[in-house]
């Protein structure tokens, strides 16, 4: 035996060896679990959280996987994720194409949550942001093809607000109108009823988690028309009324298009009325049709 290997030295060495072994072994396990958990950090596109769910990063800290929301959902739409499913094991979700959220007014799932992973400050289900509907495939949407399907528009619980039908000219026929479903993110709750009801073989409108569905303008972007409205008038130059060179006897109105000019009584000029003078006191030279 080595001279230095007194019992206390040996014990100390053993202690350090044991500690190192334990720390490495458990550290390795922790690394594995941590990496596995990272995979489940982003929600898969088909999995929608119940109403009131915190943002995914906060939700994964708050949800204790008790399943109370699942139990109190009167329509049994919620599931707890199984280990093989690509989201955090045991957390609740629903698949809109199977069973969408029925938007209960008393929101029992949120009330059932003991930790606040589903935010109790959500009192109005119409304010829920479970996800966002996206008309994901124009090529198969029946309304885009010129039919009056309108089912997504009709089933929407926030009808005529979350989805509107915007008329556009059907350039294929040249004489019909396309009623294009347009989703408005400020109104859409992500309930998924549109996706469930979409009659195409694979839904043309789908609900995705907000992080996936929603774009964001850069912070420095300004929308001219919004700024103009805020300021009560143009910020760079006063508006000039647009001048059209119309065929004789025709007039053009924004939104309506060309129409025959009403027959003017004799003596009255057929020229368009001059634009009303802006009330901002700009020099006359900068106003109206002089620009």
């Amino acid at each position: 035996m080595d001279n230095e290997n007194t019992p206390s030295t040996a014990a100390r060495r053993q202690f350090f060896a044991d500690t190192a072994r334990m720390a490495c072994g458990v550290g390795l396990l922790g690394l594995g679990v941590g990496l596995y958990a990272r995979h489940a950090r982003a929600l898969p596109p088909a999995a929608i959280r119940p109403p009131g769910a915190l943002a995914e990063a906060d939700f994964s800290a708050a949800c204790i996987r008790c399943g109370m929301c699942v139990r109190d959902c009167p329509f049994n739409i919620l599931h707890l994720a199984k280990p093989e499913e690509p989201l955090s094991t045991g957390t609740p979700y629903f698949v809109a194409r199977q069973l969408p959220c029925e938007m209960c007014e008393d929101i029992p799932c949120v009330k059932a949550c003991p930790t606040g992973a589903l935010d109790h400050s959500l009192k109005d289900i119409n304010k829920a942001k479970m996800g966002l509907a996206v008309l994901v495939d124009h090529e198969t949407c029946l309304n885009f093809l010129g039919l009056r399907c309108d089912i997504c528009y009709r089933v929407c619980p926030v009808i005529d607000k979350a989805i509107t039908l915007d008329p556009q000219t059907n350039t294929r026929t040249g004489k019909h109108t396309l009623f294009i479903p347009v989703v408005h993110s400020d109104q859409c709750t992500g309930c998924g009823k549109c996706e469930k009801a979409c009659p195409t073989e694979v839904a043309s409108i789908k609900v995705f988690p907000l992080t996936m569905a929603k774009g964001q303008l850069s912070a420095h972007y300004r929308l001219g028309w919004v700024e103009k409205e805020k300021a009560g008038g143009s910020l760079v130059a006063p508006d000039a009324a647009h001048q059209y060179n119309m065929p004789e006897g025709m007039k053009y109105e924004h939104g309506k298009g060309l129409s025959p000019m009403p027959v003017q009584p004799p003596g009255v000029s057929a020229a368009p009325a001059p634009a009303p003078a802006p009330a901002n006191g700009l020099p006359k030279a900068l106003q109206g049709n002089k620009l």
Partner: protein
Amino acid sequence: MSANSKQLLQPGAEAVITKGWLGAHRWLILRRSSQIGILLLFLVGPWFGWWIVKGNLSFSHTLNILPLTDPYIILQSLLAGHVSDKMALTGVLIVTVFYLLVGGRSFCSWVCPVNLLTDAAYWLRVRLGIKGSAHISRQTRYWILGMTLVAAAVTGSIVWEMVNPVSMMHRGLFFGFGLAWAVLLAVWLFDLFVMRHGWCGHLCPVGAFYSLIGKWSLTRIRLPLRTACNDCMDCFAVCPEPQVIRPALKAIGGTPPLILEANCTNCGRCIDVCSKDVFVFGTRFNHSVATVAGVSQVTPK
């Protein structure tokens, strides 16, 4: 080897002779009734629509009055950066007080469904005569416990719940297993072939957490008749944490006749198998010993 002597080798055989089969299995039967009863309480909801208890071991609501929350998962949630609502915190308080009274790791032997699984593995291990066992320190569970808490703080999410076999089993039973059965099978096979009392006795951080509550818990195994011990070793053979018995039984370092080790699961199996009635349930403040004649006296400190 004759059948008779083989039977005598079974721990508890002598107790069956002195106390009868029922007397020698009393706590085991009560414990299994508790484990299975609790599972049934949860299961009659999804099976028959009798919602006595909703939820699972992470959080449950009994008769819409009694919230019970797993303090361990709430601690992870807290470290991950979320402060739970009042409902969950009330449940934490109730559960913590309860286990401070009945013994921290009573959770493991009286409530946890995985114990049924690992006990079955141990039972089969003994029947199959599997002798070898991998050696890992029983302290490993505290390292894993620490790792789960650090992981929660670092990642900002309750990562241990992604793989925790304990909650996976309970959740699976009531909400659907999926592939969780494979995880549980792995735990069972590990206990059967790789390591004696492997999961519950060495690795499980849930048990490690409850043992921390058990450090101060009231209900304890007392050994008022430790002088009557005839060294038959039956208690050591059945105990899932045999290291907890020796200090109290052999009065090592002046240990009072109480099992004060935090990892005693209060399963009561030692009481069952002891033919000399050395063990009883009691409180940690009761240091009295009984003489064989039945007269109590207090051990000098």
